[in-house]
């Protein structure tokens, strides 16, 4: 099918911030989820963010500047690719890929950080901090900080600095300070704890650029709105190119920012199924997974009431996933709400399924996806086989896989293990880079 020339302009990032009737209540609650479970010391700060965001989303100048950066700097709109050869493996269902991997910095994360960095400048703050798992959000934050002249500190679990050494180097090249976090499980959740600890001491000068649609109000709402452009564009693109809406929209869910961004503009399109693919690690029944909705229970973590992985005493349980970006024992509160009301479905995808989909996408489409995004591809292959050849599936390809090449090479044993860099020299390279800059 030949795609016709674009007849109308696509929605823009600024359109994502417009009123849409799906905001939480004044306290940030989506049903019973969300809210603010956080120290009083930070309430004034999140109130300030909420007030500033409310002004910004109604300020034509802010929206114009956001649109300009998303277009001229990040490269929006991102295209939708008809994955024809991949589709042959999905029972013939047609799989369309929303190409967030083609954004500047290689993932959807740039949508949020450009918005929050502009907000930081509006608030008169000069320093940003961020947590990062896979490093994609850290890289995006470091990028936006460099662009807007902000000081940037990124907290990253020590385990993640090792498995994502390339992104550590990237952040340092961009002028950010990367602080490896050695407490707790030394992964994303501990990086979040450390970022909160920094923020409570530095809130006068610092904005916390939270990387996913989670945490205390207004972050779940605001981060979602900055990512709504994904779904707004994709909805228009699919409708224009295929004359109808997709049967299902799929995205991977860790914290869930790329998923809520692509799902949200379809909320009122009742027949469109929304399918979140959670990281099932070794399998939900093994206990070694990161599937908070499928395999967790309701609790308060990092500022919101939501599904979390916890033990009988409410202690957070360590999550497991081959994908650092999904390796988090909680999920954004709006996903918990969408699961509860049945508007979205959340399905588990194991490491092995995700890696099979990763390889298939590489070999059928010439696209090396982020392992995070490969979970959504796996979900689409499954859904396609279920729905059959008439189905039209939209997948959020949220990031590119350059950062995961080493992990994938080890998984598939495609190079002599001795030829792969060990952790040590990578660290040395990063340190050397920092010294020279």
């Amino acid at each position, binding site marked *: 099918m030949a795609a016709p020339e674009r007849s109308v302009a696509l929605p823009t990032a600024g359109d994502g911030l417009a009123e849409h009737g799906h905001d939480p209540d004044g306290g940030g609650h989506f049903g019973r989820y969300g809210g603010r*479970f956080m*120290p*009083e010391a930070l*309430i004034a700060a999140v109130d300030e963010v909420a007030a500033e965001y409310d002004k910004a989303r109604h300020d034509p100048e802010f929206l114009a500047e956001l649109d300009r950066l998303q277009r001229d700097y990040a490269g929006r709109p991102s295209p939708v690719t008809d994955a024809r050869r991949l589709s042959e493996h999905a029972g013939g269902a047609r799989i369309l890929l929303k190409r967030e991997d083609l954004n500047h910095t290689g993932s959807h994360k740039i949508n949020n950080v450009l918005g929050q960095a502009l907000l930081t400048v509006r608030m008169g703050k000069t320093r940003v901090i961020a947590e990062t798992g896979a490093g994609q959000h850290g890289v995006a934050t470091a990028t936006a900080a460099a662009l807007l002249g902000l000081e940037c500190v990124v907290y990253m679990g020590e385990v993640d600095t090792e498995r994502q050494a390339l992104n550590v180097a990237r952040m340092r090249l961009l002028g950010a300070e990367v602080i490896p976090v050695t407490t707790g499980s030394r992964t994303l959740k501990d990086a979040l704890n450390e970022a909160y600890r920094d923020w409570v001491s530095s809130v006068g000068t610092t904005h916390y650029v939270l990387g996913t649609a989670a945490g205390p109000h207004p972050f779940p709402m605001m981060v979602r709105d900055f990512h709504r452009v994904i779904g707004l564009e994709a909805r228009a693109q699919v409708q224009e190119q295929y004359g109808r809406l997709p049967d299902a929209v799929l995205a991977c869910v860790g914290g869930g920012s790329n998923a809520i961004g692509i799902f949200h503009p379809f909320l009122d399109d009742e027949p469109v199924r929304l399918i979140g693919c959670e990281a099932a690690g070794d399998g939900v029944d093994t206990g070694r997974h990161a599937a908070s909705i499928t395999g967790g229970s309701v609790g*308060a973590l990092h500022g919101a009431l939501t599904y979390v992985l916890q033990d009988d005493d*409410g*202690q957070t349980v360590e999550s497991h996933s081959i994908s650092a970006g999904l390796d988090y024992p909680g999920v954004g509160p709006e996903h918990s709400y969408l699961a509860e009301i049945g508007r979205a479905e959340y399905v588990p995808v194991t490491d092995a399924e995700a890696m099979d989909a990763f390889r298939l996408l590489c070999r059928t489409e010439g696209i090396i996806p982020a392992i995070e995004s490969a979970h959504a591809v796996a979900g689409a292959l499954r859904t396609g086989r279920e729905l059959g050849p008439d189905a039209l599936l939209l997948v959020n390809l949220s990031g590119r896989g350059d950062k995961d090449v080493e992990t994938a090479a080890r998984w598939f044993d495609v190079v002599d293990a001795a030829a792969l860099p060990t952790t040590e020299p990578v660290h040395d390279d990063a340190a050397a880079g920092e010294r020279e800059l």
Partner: protein
Amino acid sequence: MTSTQTGLDRLREVFSTARAESRAALISYLPTGYPTIPGSRGLLTQTLDAGADLVEVGLPYSDPVLDGPVVAHAVETALRGGVRTRDTLDLVEALAARGGRAVVMTYWNPVLRYGVEAFARDLAAAGGLGLITPDLVPDEAGEWLDAADRHGIAPIFLVAPSSTEDRIASTTAATRGFVYAASTMGVTGARDTVATSAPELVARTRRHTDLPVGVGLGVRNGAQAGEIATYADGVIVGSAMVSAAEHGRAAVARLTTELAAGVRGNHTGR
């Protein structure tokens, strides 16, 4: 103590007694299970015997976002040792049985998981006087406020230097027993100086409530305790007490004695 007294009544007594003696109350924090469960019981008993008017028994939690390295490390140690929620309630019961006055300090999720009503009931039954909740603000505390009221224990909330007047008003309105004034914008940890923001925060808090005000975050020695006692009703010592605990019961006793003298020494009354 009489059987008709609620936990909240006995918490009020802590402060009325101190006030009658023209001094501030000394409040010591130590987490359950550090270094071991019996060890924490010994340390808490020690600080009570050496002059603490009230203890805050910390319920260990895996993600203590408001705690600095000293407390975070102690709590991690306790969790690695297998401490459970029930152990904190048992510890409170053991302390109360020998006349010790105890409140519990906990992040919110362990209480949510235990069941808000059940936790209030069991804490009251154990003889606990109240609950300090560093990551629960009154805005989210509806169910907890009802349960605490039903069981006669004090919901204790924090105010911070960044709190607006409106928030100090609403927070103190929901608080019973005493208000916890977090002196510093930062995580827990002993500091050489308690921020200059502390007297101002206490003064601002007093404009909204007649409740006693306890000052915590950063207190580490008798001189600081004495200084705080000139303007606050309670001096709360956490990280410094945990650091002392690393060196055993004698160190906890020594620090408590010094602090107890401090809250008496310089106190000029209100």
